[in-house]
Structures are given as C-alpha cells and as structure tokens.
C-alpha cells in the first residue's frame, strides 16, 4: 500500500520557472526522502530530511517538512529541461538504515525548453 500521496500528479512548466511538488503521508516517520526517476531508469536519491528537521537545501532543491500536517514539499528552482522526470517521496518509520521505504505514486514533471 502507498503511504504517501504527491500532488499535483502532473506538472508542466517553462524552463527557468520554479516547480513545487507536495507530498502527504499517513503514519509517523523517521525520515522523508525525495527521489527522481527518469523514464526507464532507476531511482536517484535527491535529498533526505529527518523528522526533527523543518527545512533543508541542496543546490537548486529545497525541501520542507511539517510533521504536524504530515506533509512535505520539494521546490526546484530555476528548472531545466533535464529536470523532466517523475518525482517520488518516500518515508520510513524506523530509525537506522534498515527500514523499508514506503513510496507515493509520484509526480510527473515536464519542463518545456
């Protein structure tokens, strides 16, 4: 079963614009991670935010976490055509590196050149 739900399901923007994607989840978490998946490829890890963190940055990525609302957002600034991909949020519920991830259904991002 899917833990998270991302919205929107699909997003189309112009190159240079910012893209904001949201994720909601149902149960308590230890970490929340965002992954990117290009067509026909595996998942690439983008960023991890822990349950005691509220915001994190990595390059053009900014992720926020609101545990009271059980939601997270991923912001990609100054988007590029190469950012076109599916984006997934994933949560785990146990401390340590041994926890299975529960994914949402994903958001399809299209960046028009």
């Amino acid at each position, binding site marked *: *079963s*899917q833990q*998270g739900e991302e919205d929107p399901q699909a997003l189309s923007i112009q190159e240079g614009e910012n893209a904001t994607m949201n994720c909601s989840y149902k149960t308590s978490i*230890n*970490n929340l*991670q965002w*992954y990117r998946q290009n067509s*026909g*490829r*595996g*998942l*690439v*890890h983008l960023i*991890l935010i822990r349950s005691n963190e509220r915001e994190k940055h990595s390059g053009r990525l900014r992720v926020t976490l609101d545990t009271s609302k059980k939601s997270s957002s991923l912001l990609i600034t100054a988007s590029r055509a190469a950012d076109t991909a599916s984006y*997934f949020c*994933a949560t*785990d519920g146990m401390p*340590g*590196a*041994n*926890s*299975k*991830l*529960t*994914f*949402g*259904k*994903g958001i399809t991002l299209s960046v028009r050149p």
Partner: protein
Amino acid sequence: GAGVSQSPRYKVAKRGQDVALRCDPISGHVSLFWYQQALGQGPEFLTYFQNEAQLDKSGLPSDRFFAERPEGSVSTLKIQRTQQEDSAVYLCASSSPVEDTQYFGPGTRLTVL
C-alpha cells in the same frame, strides 16, 4: 565508485516460466532491499536483507516469490510459475549502516506474456 547493478535489464517470460533476477549491491553495504514497481505506480517493498539474513519478507506477494543472499553480497529474486500480474520493474537498493539513504539500481523490467 560503482553503484548498484542489476541483471538482466529486461526479461521476457512466458506465463508459467521461472525467472531469476540478480542484484549486485554497493560494496560494503550490509542492507539490501527489493521493490516492485508496477507501471505508473511508486515502488512497493518486497523484502529486506541484513547481510545474509532475510529479516523482512512481508511484501512478497505470494509463495511463488523467493529471495536469497547466501554470502551477504549478491542477491537473487526468483519468481516461480510467472503470471501476467508479475509484469513490473523490480528494483534493488542497498544502504550502509552509517546513513539512511537507499541507493537504487537501474531495475529489471519483467514482462510476462
């Protein structure tokens, strides 16, 4: 360094055939996960190994699915008597004890005719 590798990348099987999918994790990673990703969906957890021990197989959909990691490195996911509903991308991920990030391989796309 080398990432997670999986083979074959593509597999076509006739219904009723047995298949074996291989995963080579990142060297030194003790945790190994298998996920199943249906078309248009997020990955769903199948099973987890810590070294050679299979600690969680709660996601395996039926007793036709079997996974092993006999020497604590390479893992094989075997599906017996394949059915059309087994068609999916099978993803393998590994992680180290010092971080919570799971690193994914490119996946094996299984098509059952």
